């Protein structure tokens, strides 16, 4: 039997995928584990691997095509089977049997398909895989709107995965029972990019080129989620200036001592630890809006906005570091580096991008003074970090030079009030200004 390979579901929210690049061609032998193609999902570009051995008999979709989950994208000839036979059989996709591709195959392979009409009729009327259109009862649809539950994030328990009343009620009350204890953030989000490292300064262009750029899946998701956040979450921002002299000095000292161990702490590592420790004292900021309740989380999982390089299609992703309140600077540093590297080079898995309880968006490396970030729902708070810039500081009535860093909290006002946010910022400021506390 020919082996059909369908567009796989590579993330919880994926509904369709774009085939960026085929790594194999017709006639190639493949074995399980081989990297067949690159597929772009709504979040990231992932490798499509072979699960079985075979020979490529037919490539069903072209590079650049976007197809729904479940649609056949290629056919392999199995053991002892000729490529020609495999290519001729099973012409249409198992998904929607429409579209020019299926039609063309139908007419060109009349003979081969003639003995299979019953089968294709059957598969056409069979329940569709749970990709594509979401099945939902009228009542559940109404309840989801009332309670602000995203239907795409729910697995229905009715017939054929139909989402029904109890699924909505469960999702609304549990917030995130589907994916573990922490709320599943969609990973791709919020504010300006961060930490891309070597953003090359633009070379002096002599002319600009006008062009229209097709949206990538990730760009669509970023757009959708940010519009959703900015239009449905009542944002407010509170800002504080933090004197960074002590922290920069401490960092420099530590890095000299740790140099031999090949450890280099970044300012961001200190900030992450301070954000987590301060959140332990003000748990309200480490919360999620749940429609008719607020979930305060028992751990601080920080989502870090990471800008992706242009070669990987640009955009930004939000890897998550879990349990930051229990981790030391060295571990935070190592995990951040590893995740950022993975994000830029090979792409993150959906698990590595979900479960954040608070977010940090750091634009310090670009020299910008301040950023007012957009919240990454369901997080209630995101911290925007500016660059530590040398400024004229008034100290004991004297103007002296000093490093000042602008920290801006954007909060969901349904969850966090201004005073609470300001108290949190006060704690955070004090921790950053007296950084020895971050070492213990």
């Amino acid at each position: 039997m020919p082996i059909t390979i369908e567009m796989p579901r590579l993330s919880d929210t994926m509904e369709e995928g774009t085939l960026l690049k085929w790594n194999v061609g017709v006639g190639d032998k493949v074995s399980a584990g081989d990297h067949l193609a690159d597929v772009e999902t709504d979040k990231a570009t992932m490798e499509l691997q072979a699960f079985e051995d075979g020979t490529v008999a037919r490539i069903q979709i072209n590079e650049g095509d976007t197809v729904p989950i479940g649609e056949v994208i290629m056919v392999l000839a199995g053991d002892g089977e000729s490529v020609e036979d495999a290519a001729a059989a099973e012409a249409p996709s198992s998904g929607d049997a429409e579209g020019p591709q299926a039609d063309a195959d139908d007419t060109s392979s009349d003979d081969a398909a003639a003995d299979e009409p019953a089968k294709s009729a059957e598969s056409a009327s069979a329940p569709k895989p749970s990709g594509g259109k979401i099945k939902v009862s009228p009542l559940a649809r109404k309840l989801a709107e009332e309670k602000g539950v995203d239907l795409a994030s729910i697995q229905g328990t009715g017939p054929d995965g139909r989402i029904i009343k109890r699924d909505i009620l469960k999702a609304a009350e549990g917030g995130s029972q589907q994916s573990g204890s922490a709320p599943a953030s969609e990973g791709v989000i919020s504010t300006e990019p961060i930490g891309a490292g070597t953003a090359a300064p633009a070379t002096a262009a002599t002319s600009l080129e006008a062009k229209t750029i097709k949206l990538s899946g990730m760009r669509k998701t970023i757009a959708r989620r940010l519009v959703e956040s900015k239009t449905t979450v009542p944002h407010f921002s509170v800002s504080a200036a933090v004197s960074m002299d002590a922290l920069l000095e401490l960092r420099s000292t530590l890095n000299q001592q740790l140099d031999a161990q090949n450890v280099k702490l970044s300012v961001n590592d200190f900030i992450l630890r301070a954000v987590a420790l301060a959140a332990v004292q003000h748990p309200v900021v480490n919360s999620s809006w749940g429609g008719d309740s607020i979930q305060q989380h028992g751990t601080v999982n920080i989502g870090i906005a990471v800008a992706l390089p242009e070669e990987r299609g640009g955009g930004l992703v939000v890897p998550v570091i879990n349990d930051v309140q229990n981790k030391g600077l060295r571990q935070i540093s190592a995990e951040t580096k590893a995740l950022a590297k993975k994000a830029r080079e090979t792409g993150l898995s959906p698990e590595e991008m979900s479960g954040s309880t608070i977010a940090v968006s750091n634009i310090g490396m670009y020299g910008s003074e301040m950023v007012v970030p957009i919240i990454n729902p369901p997080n209630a708070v995101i911290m925007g970090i500016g660059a530590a810039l040398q400024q004229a500081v008034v100290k004991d009535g004297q103007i002296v030079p000093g490093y000042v860093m602008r920290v801006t909290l954007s909060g969901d006002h349904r969850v966090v009030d201004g005073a609470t946010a300001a108290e949190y910022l006060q704690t955070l400021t004090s921790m950053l200004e007296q950084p020895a506390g971050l070492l213990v």
Partner: protein
Amino acid sequence: MVASDRKLQYREALREAMQEEMRRDERVFLMGEEVAEYHGAYKVSQGMVEEFGPRRIVDSPISETGFAGLGVGAAMYGLRPIIEFMSWSFCLVAADQIINNAPKMLYMSGGQFGCPAVFRGNNGAGGQLGSTHSWSVESLFSHVPGLKLAVPSTPRDAKGLLKAGIRDEDPFFNLESERMLGMGARGDKDFSRYLKGGKWAPPEDDDDFVIELGVADVKKSGSDCTVVSAGRPVHFALEAAEALEKEGIDVEVVDVRTYRPLDIETIASSVRKTNYAVVVDQSWPFASVGAEVAAQIYERCFDDLDNQVIRVHNDDVPAPYNREMEQACLPNTKKIIEAVKAVTYNA
């Protein structure tokens, strides 16, 4: 006024309704096969010829076309006939009079006169009478504008609805059930539970006790699923509700009592509360009253439904004579339990 120790069979309730109305209004008379000397084939009119005499309790030959037509003419003339069909299955030969003429008379006379005739008799299968005797005609007749149609499920409803129908200016069809005529007899186990509470009490011993046509009755309130029915299957629905209560499913049983007029608002408000609906109908499924009720539920409650409306019907075949097969075709308690579980995603 509720006489709490009074026990009345369904057939006695029908008789009492006719007696009271005949005493109240001398235009009322009863006609049908064996209703006088033999006291009714099912003893519904027992003793009536003694009280009212053979001019008002009239024995007719086996001639449905003739005596149904006579009833329609008498009503047009100003009398208040009650025409008894021994079985509603036999009325079909008189279809021209009872459904082509009677319901349209008020319209066709430009409002000058109508046809306040009452037609009543046994309806539905369940007594091994073969397929020509086992019609459930509610779907067939509910189709026609201009008539009122009741399917009473208890002695109290039988009395109150029949009295209202006799007083009504429109043609009124009362669909009774041979299987229910003895219900409510003294010591009847099934009847005992109806004695609790006002709604379940026997009919008031009151000349002016009537039940308004077009008002459904919530026979049992519940929060998890609405079961809509009428007539005999209401009892299956109540039995199903009792069984399901043990499994934690709280069923609401709505007895429509009259299919025409249909009290869709009571049904809809129940469905809006429970979000699930099962419609139980003793007639055939195609183009049936159950289909009509389901469609109206969709029209009014679409956004409150968490599943499709499930219908429980008589099987779409002529009634078999064989007892086991006949029972298997009818709506029953087990089918209703299964439907409620399926519709509430508890199957």
